[in-house]
């Protein structure tokens, strides 16, 4: 027998657990403006470094620097900031509703607001998101009625989804918001299929796929990338790396071995890793990838580096598995604070307007919540009859019989 040592089994561990000091020294933060900006028809092989760096635009002093710094129109910036404030106010109120027992479930996107919102602002009417459960900013940055979102969360009589779907798994076709599954990773490949259809029909619409760092481990992630690689459809593959999948840190999804962005290299798909808490970077890179897709240059993968400040959901308690102060120690800061400071520096915003805005949106959410609650809370308004509808286009005999048996 050769002299082999016993093998050792490797299970990655995060840098800190409850009681530890947060430690992000392993995350290298390049200076803002240091990453190059390629042309949209670039050969993926020529920009492999962009999957290992972090594209950043806002520097510490609140200046927009480097080749990704765009001349973003003021109304876009203003709408972006307000939408982020609005989303955070919405999340806070919905969390309270759950604590009051008025809904069964909620998920906040605190700290990740810039990603969904700036991306949505770069998209056009007719495009389609295939969101996961932390992209409420897509709807909250458009004119979709807030009260309808709350009706869905409350599963009440005005719930657009008739009480059949878990809170926050919205479906809003007219606003480019594909029905959220709740199963993870499945929709990443559907977005690729949707984009294939756009190309098959010779249209100019593009799809935006969304997935979290944890779910990149699903085989559907590979299915999406291999099909995107083969057919080169107009799709942007968004990986939101918020560091945590419930209690599993990103290393459990393989994030310690390579960046999530680097995974696209094996498929020949261009890939960019971006500061997801830098609104200016999110907007610029989103526009780049969307334009690339719409011009027929194919898919792009973007890893948005961010941090899940909130618990996974209302059913989760992060104090059981990660350092208490980790979210405040997160080196990329808070996206709202950063954009606010940038806009104040440019003379577009002020501390007073910030406070005023927060108050206004809090009022808006309270008013909308009151209206939604008048239609019932936690299933009190949803009809049992609706349970049998929409299983098929036409109700088959066995379902009709079961509904009769139930007496509705």
């Amino acid at each position, binding site marked *: 027998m050769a002299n082999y040592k016993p093998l050792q089994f490797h299970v990655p561990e995060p840098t800190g657990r409850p009681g530890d000091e947060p430690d992000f020294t392993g995350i290298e933060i390049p200076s803002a403006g240091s990453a190059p900006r390629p042309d949209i028809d670039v050969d993926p092989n020529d920009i492999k470094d962009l999957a290992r760096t972090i594209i950043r635009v806002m520097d510490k002093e609140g200046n927009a620097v480097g080749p990704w710094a765009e001349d973003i129109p003021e109304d876009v910036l203003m709408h972006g900031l307000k939408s982020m404030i609005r989303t955070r106010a919405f999340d806070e109120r919905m969390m309270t509703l759950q604590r009051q027992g008025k809904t069964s479930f909620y998920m906040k996107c605190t700290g990740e607001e810039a990603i969904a919102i700036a991306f949505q602002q770069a998209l056009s009417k007719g495009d389609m998101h295939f969101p996961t459960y932390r992209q409420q900013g897509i709807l909250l940055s458009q004119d979709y009625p807030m009260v309808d979102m709350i009706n869905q969360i409350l599963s009440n009589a005005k719930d657009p989804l008739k009480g059949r779907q878990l809170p926050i798994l919205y479906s809003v076709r007219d606003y480019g918001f594909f029905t959220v599954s709740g199963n993870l990773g499945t929709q990443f*490949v559907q977005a690729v*299929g949707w984009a294939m259809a756009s*190309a098959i029909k010779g249209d100019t619409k593009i799809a935006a796929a969304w997935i979290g760092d944890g779910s990149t481990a699903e*085989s559907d992630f590979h299915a999406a990338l291999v099909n995107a690689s083969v057919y080169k459809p107009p799709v942007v593959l968004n990986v939101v790396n918020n560091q945590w999948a419930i209690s599993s840190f990103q290393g459990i999804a393989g994030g310690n071995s390579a960046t999530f962005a680097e995974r696209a290299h094996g498929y020949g798909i261009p890939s960019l890793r971006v500061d997801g808490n830098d609104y200016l970077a999110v907007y610029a890179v989103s526009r780049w990838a969307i334009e690339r897709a719409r011009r027929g240059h194919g898919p792009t993968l973007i890893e948005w580096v961010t941090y899940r400040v909130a618990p996974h959901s209302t059913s989760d308690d992060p104090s059981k598995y990660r350092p208490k102060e980790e979210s405040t120690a997160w080196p990329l800061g808070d996206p709202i604070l950063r954009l606010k400071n940038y806009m104040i520096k440019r003379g577009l915003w002020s501390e007073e307007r910030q406070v005023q805005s927060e108050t206004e949106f809090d009022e808006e959410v309270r008013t909308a919540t009151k209206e939604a609650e008048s239609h019932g809370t936690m299933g009190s308004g949803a009809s049992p009859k609706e349970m049998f509808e929409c299983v098929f*286009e036409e109700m088959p005999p*066995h379902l009709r019989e079961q509904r009769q048996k139930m007496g509705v």
Partner: protein
Amino acid sequence: MPQMNMIEAIRDAMDVKMAEDDNVVVFGEDVGYFGGVFRCTHGLQEKYGTSRVFDSPINESGIVGTAIGMAAYGLRPCVEIQFADYIYPAYDQIVSEAARMRYRSSAEFTSPLVIRTPCGGGIFGGQTHSQSPEALFTHISGVKTVIVSNPYDAKGMLISAIEDNDPVIFFEPKRLYNGPFDGHHDRPAKNWNSHPKGDVPEGHYTVPIGKADVVSEGSDVTILTYGTMVYVAEAVKEETGVDAEIIDLRSLLPLDIDTIEASVKKTGRCMVLHEATLTSGFGAELAAQVQERCFYHLETPVERVTGWDTPYPHAQEWDYFPGPARVGAALKAMMEAV
């Protein structure tokens, strides 16, 4: 009327629909240039181009997952899973996604797609080219499950399936592609030329999903079956002389329970016959529904004759397959019981 085998009938159905509707697209492993390992899509790429008929990577969850996205866009994908044995990687996409799309989105998004897949044994395909997983799809809410037994039905039902606004799993018993097979594997193979169901009209026609076909009337016992077993049942009827009423279910979900109920109440006996394994097979559902509706008309217990609860073996294929000898013995035992 043209004579077609089941492969030609299936191809013709896709051809008819592709000519009628630009939104129909066809893809799967080897279905493009080559035309499929069973040749069901032969010539379609040449006729309709690579944007509408193309090869997919060996990635079943991707085939169905992309088809779901396309269907949400407004296309009508008709995809092929090369063998039903390969469908399991796509199961999550079927169960959690296609089947629930209409329900969870309140019909904002739907999944009008067809998943064609060859099933069943009888070709020495071993455990990975012989399975009949139909029951797995009848257990989920929101997909229709169809299994055809002849060229006429295959074309008419595939057209119905492509036109259906809900997802349809379309099983094609591969042992029937080239002719009706009655289980006598030691006898010369028959082809569809001389069979009345090999007469397939040109152009568009439909056979509805949800209607069973009484393929042979009788008064002593009802045999509920589908796919390849239809011909085994017919052979057994002839060989035993038992006056069996043979019902080809064709559609397992929705199920034509009215036709089943009327027949069993008339004959007073019921045999359920399928090639798939016994435990929790679709026969269990049939037996339950028959006893719920026909209990006081039954003279004997409902009898199930099926494949054994083993993986589909290779060398022992004909020991596994519920052929005429096994079915005949069971049928005679039923008749002698009372």
